[in-house]
């Protein structure tokens, strides 16, 4: 591994669910990279496959789902080829994850210290009690929990939602991971707490060089936080690029639609823009572009074949035959 190796490089990842009703291609040919200290925003509606992408990188896809193809290069080595027993040693130590609902992620009947110490000792049996305790206190302090010494002895229900999410983040930070995957971690929180957590996440990435994948459906969250952004639709990444480029000059019609439906970007008094139609079923995806039924620019060719990736500019990728080019909005 040299300094130029990205922390994570996902290539042509396919995670499919084999259900009775058919094969659900939850993640279909997804590629992206995240470098050291970089924040990647993974944006899409629910059902677009962004969460499954996150779980795939963790190796935590539940049956009947599994990774059928592609590679997950983490610091240069392919996780997808690892047996689960070795993947386990990377989970929680090199790659950590934060979940959406802080009320559900902590075990209600175990004390905070139990849940933190076990995360340390799962990866290093040699850490003694005092050392583990010291690291827990340090980690809780890092995420801004007051009097961490006392709070360690508490049970999850004694914390508010925001505090619980901080505890979850503290657990993620315990082993100083190279990559953190955050799956809508602020969606269930108050706006003010959301802002604090976003600020701290960004600071963390900048200061420690930890790479961050921030999964969200909320473009406004990504706008202030991410360096780069991937927009997912029906299991595929339809547009990728630097955050300011994608938000200022969206090229894919779906990205345009998403940006158009953010309230603050609309003039007051006019009706909010809405993308017509709804997310398609992933079981029987039509041939061709999955978005074409909802797309204003769709032509006959869109139905023929799924659009291939094109690279209109350096660091910019897009899956569309008729993208918006050149016209800034």
């Amino acid at each position: 591994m040299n300094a130029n190796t990205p922390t994570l490089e996902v290539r042509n990842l396919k995670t499919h669910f084999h259900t009775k009703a058919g094969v659900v291609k939850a993640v279909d040919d997804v590629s992206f990279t995240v470098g050291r200290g970089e924040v990647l925003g993974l944006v899409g509606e629910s059902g677009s496959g962004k969460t499954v992408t996150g779980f795939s990188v963790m190796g935590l896809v539940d049956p009947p789902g599994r990774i059928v193809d592609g590679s997950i290069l983490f610091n240069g080595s392919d996780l997808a080829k690892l047996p689960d027993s070795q993947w386990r040693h990377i989970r929680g130590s090199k790659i950590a994850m934060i979940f959406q609902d802080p009320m559900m992620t902590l075990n209600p009947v175990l004390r905070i210290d139990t849940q933190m110490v076990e995360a340390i000792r799962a990866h290093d049996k040699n850490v003694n009690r005092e050392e583990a305790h010291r690291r827990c206190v340090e980690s809780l302090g890092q995420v801004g929990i007051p009097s961490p010494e006392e709070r360690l002895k508490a049970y999850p229900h004694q914390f508010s939602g925001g505090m619980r999410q901080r505890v979850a983040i503290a657990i993620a930070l315990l082993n100083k991971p190279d990559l953190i995957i955050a799956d809508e971690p602020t969606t269930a929180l108050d706006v003010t707490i959301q802002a604090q957590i976003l600020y701290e996440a960004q600071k963390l990435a900048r200061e420690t060089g930890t790479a961050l994948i921030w999964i969200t459906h909320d473009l406004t969250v990504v706008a202030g936080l991410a360096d780069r952004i991937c927009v997912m639709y029906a299991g595929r990444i339809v547009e990728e690029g630097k955050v300011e480029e994608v938000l200022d000059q969206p090229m894919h019609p779906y990205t345009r639609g998403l940006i158009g439906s953010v309230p603050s970007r609309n003039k007051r008094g006019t009706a909010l823009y809405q993308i017509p139609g709804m997310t398609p079923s992933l079981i029987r995806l039509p041939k061709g572009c999955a978005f074409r039924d909802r797309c204003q620019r769709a032509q006959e060719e869109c139905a023929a074949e799924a659009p291939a990736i094109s690279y209109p500019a350096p660091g910019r990728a897009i899956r569309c035959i008729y993208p918006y080019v050149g016209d800034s909005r």
Partner: protein
Amino acid sequence: MTVFLIRRFSQSLAVLLVMSLLVFVGVYAIGDPVELLVSAEADQFERARVIADLGLDKPLWEQYGYFLLQSFKGDLGTSFVFNQPALLLILERMPATLEIAFAAVILSIVIGIPLGMIAGLRPHAWYSRTIMSVSILGFSLPTFWVGLMMIMVFAVILGWLPASGRGDTVDLFGVPVSFLTWDGLTHLLLPAVNLALFKVSLVIRLTRAGMRENMLMDYVKFAYAKGLSHARVIFVHVLKNILVPVVTVVGLELGNVIAFAVVTESIFAWPGMGKLLIDSIYRLDRPIVVAYLLITVVMFIVINFIVDVLYSVLDPRVRLESKS
């Protein structure tokens, strides 16, 4: 915690009062107390003496007060057959009943929880389906018939285990117990398994349901995301969550087990209070029946009380609610 204890305790007392009233109404107001409490063989003189003794010529509320007072003092009447205080007779036999009841509860936990966990982890595997089918059988099998078949197979045909009685006992804190001698243990095995059968199925089903529910929870996924091993996630995280409801139910079922011991004790001639009850019903020894009823009511209330307290100790969420 103290507030919780006091509140819970006063509830128990209220239930006890209500139940005593019900028993009183059952015995004194609906039934004919003279017929219930006076032996059929008693002559005129004897009858008159008992009526005066029990104050049956006084108004009902006064009788109830007297009944309460006597019960409180531990005087629950005298057995016609043994001519001894009913309370004493029942208390003498209580350890035997408690012994098979506890043995059955322990068996059902030791067998039921692992099987339920297996069935919950891989609900569609053939062995899980087998476990679940057998558990339906478990609560469909009439306990008494299974007991008979067990006697036939293990005592009559194979001759491995004794069919009746308690075997050798030794005193543990002044109470005779069977499980500390080899002979006693062989006597204990069949009745305990027989009594446990129903509860094993219950524990399997509870554990499996809890397992399936909990395995889908985010906290399990988060635990895996921390890099914990399967063993740690299942045996620490999930098991501890399942134990709370299972222990509660099993605890509450202890009373049920004691009641069902009536059947098992009759089949295996186990000298417990259940067998005494059946024998007394045959012999029309009513004071014992009434005393048995009162004692089990008290036992039930005590068990429910203990389980509630245990529950609050096990589940931190309940513990806190009572504090605030």
